[in-house]
């Protein structure tokens, strides 16, 4: 099996889906000749032509608004937002239309499209090239929100997203784009939406996380194992909404302790929902407090980003807190 990084896996997913289904088109800023600023769409224009790989004017509102119209008519657009930090101009189209057209039309119309975009920090991208805005999407009924952490999952989840009849927000943790390589099948497969992945088995405490934070969590897990002998289970949520509550609950039945790790800011962040869900439905499973390790409640900074983001020290501190409660 070929070894790929996430960019290559995503590129292959797009290529395969476009070959498989003539309704799949790609549009966005610089997705054509330039191949996207991270080269995720590299070469597609040569293979599928300008009608299906569309360089657009510079307006996120237009990209998403037009993609919605395409999806209404019967295409399956994959719209790229160059960095998710620029998605907000499209927020009205996303919240008022992409998420609501099925409901507004009583089920008569749907918007089977994917909004894919590099997200998250870790590459010195500063305030507007590093954000993790998944909470906004998770709070918006009508959307599915996905974030892969590995090349294998990236390919399989993107293919599943393109085939979904509901609109999907597909977030790609750009710090992982080229740093993680693994074997990725050269053939068609999908990773089902809504299913988490057990990354590391453990019995004392559960970390629920996703994206690049999977790797920070694994490092912290190793550290506490070495230092304290605690056994940490790590779950990669993969689909953020609807999230795999069964996977979390199953793990908690074993560990009775929960730490949530994400890059997004804490207040009303995605971790709040997971914590609230457990506090509402499974509080009896918990031995003590839930801990959240998250991006701070500030804009994403250019200076000291690694201190802003959850890092091994902060995850370690949280694990210690819930273990020593």
């Amino acid at each position, binding site marked *: 099996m070929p070894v790929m990084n996430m960019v290559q896996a995503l590129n292959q997913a797009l290529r395969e889906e476009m070959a498989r289904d003539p309704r799949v*088109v790609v549009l966005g800023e610089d997705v054509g000749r330039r191949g996207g600023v991270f080269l995720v769409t590299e070469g597609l224009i040569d293979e599928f032509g300008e009608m299906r790989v569309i360089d657009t004017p510079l307006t996120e509102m237009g990209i998403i*608004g037009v993609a919605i*119209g395409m999806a209404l008519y019967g295409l399956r657009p994959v719209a790229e937002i160059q960095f998710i930090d620029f998605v907000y101009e499209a927020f009205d189209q996303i919240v008022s239309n992409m998420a609501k057209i*099925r*409901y507004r039309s*009583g089920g008569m119309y749907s918007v089977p499209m994917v909004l894919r975009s590099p997200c998250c920090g870790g590459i010195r991208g500063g305030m507007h090239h590093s954000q993790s805005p998944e909470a906004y999407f998770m709070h918006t*009924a009508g959307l599915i929100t996905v974030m892969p952490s590995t090349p294998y999952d990236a390919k399989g989840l993107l293919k599943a997203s393109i085939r979904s009849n*509901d609109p999907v927000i597909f977030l790609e943790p750009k710090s992982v784009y080229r740093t993680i390589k693994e074997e990725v099948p050269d053939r068609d497969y999908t990773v089902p939406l809504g299913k988490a992945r057990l990354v590391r088995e453990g019995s004392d405490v559960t970390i629920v996380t996703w994206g690049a934070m999977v790797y920070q969590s694994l490092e912290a897990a190793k550290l506490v194992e070495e230092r304290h002998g605690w056994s940490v289970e790590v779950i990669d949520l993969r689909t953020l909404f609807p999230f795999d*509550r069964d996977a979390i609950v199953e793990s908690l039945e074993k560990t009775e302790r929960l730490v949530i790790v994400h890059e997004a800011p804490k207040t009303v962040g995605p971790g709040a929902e997971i914590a609230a869900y457990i506090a509402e439905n499974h509080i009896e499973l918990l031995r003590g407090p839930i801990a959240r390790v998250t991006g701070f409640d500030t804009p994403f900074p250019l200076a000291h980003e690694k201190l802003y983001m959850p890092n091994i020290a902060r995850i370690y501190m949280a694990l210690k807190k819930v273990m020593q409660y």
Partner: protein
Amino acid sequence: MEVLGRRDILNIDRALGLYRVLDEDGNPVAGEPSLPDKLLLDMYTYMVRARILDGWLLKLQRMGRVALHAPNKGQEAAAVGATLALKREDWLFPSYRELGALLVRGMTEEEILDRALTTIDDPLKGSDFAIYGHRKYNIVPAPVPVANQIPHAVGAALAAKIMGDKIVTMTFFGDGSTSRGDFHTGLNFAGVFKAPVVFVNQNNQWAISVPLKRQTASPTIAIKGVAYGVPGIRVDGNDVIAVYTVAMEAVERARSGEGPTLIEAVTYRLGPHTTADDPTRYRVEEEVREWERKEPLRRMRRYLISRGLLTEEEDKALWSEWEKRIEETVVKVLEKPPLPPEVVLEDVYEEPPWNLREQMRELRDSIRLLKELGVELE
């Protein structure tokens, strides 16, 4: 000074002018229009039906049976004239003030009333007020945030182009809506990609209380097309024949691959903005009176009569026939049962995820409890 040699594409004269076939009293301004008699009578009939239905929706709102209505009175010609230029397979992206367009596409008064009254047969299952649509007629229900539908119409047009379908999309929006980002981005994409779309701006002079001159310092709406390489045509929006004529031209341009057109239909909203509005707060009665004289039904009726296509008696008969038919429909629809409460939780996704399945249980439990408590929530 070197000047770019592309002034032709600006279409300035048509974008600053005002195309008319009939004058305000229904007299042809430049010779008899050469349209089939039946089409002329259809135009009028659609406008009559829209006018009567509009009145009923107003009444039904006052009766508390319709949540809100945006009156169409005075703007029937733009909606009817433009939509008549479409073919069956074309797609319509209306706003909230185009009853006539819905009728032209084939939607029935009953379907529209089901929608407005959110009966059990409401095709949109109670989702929002003042919006209409139906897949059967290629009408996408309007979003209430104005102008949102403009990029959708462009996207659908591009999709058709990509798929090789020779269809055209048409979208309606008001003068106020041209200030929104969606207008800008929609027109821009359409211009760049030569999308087969017809933009119909209903310039009714007001966006609720904001007059046109506070909306834009542009001399006309049609001229805004220049910014996007999209030809603009300004037309008397109360002259249904004129609207039809320019719309036909635009639809044909689009269908033959020449790209989009921006039509500014100059008209006037004779009623309040919606049933929740009080226009006396912001506009003077004289202005309304003046536009009442120019309203589209009177004008078209005069023309049809003068041309001998309609007699006074036939006109009366037409009105009373439709008044009767629509009243009967209203009565029928009023008796239909409402939508079941479960619709609240349906159609969010293709299949409800676990949270909605749980919330469905919560909803059902709460309904049982409300009954037990004797609480009426509607």
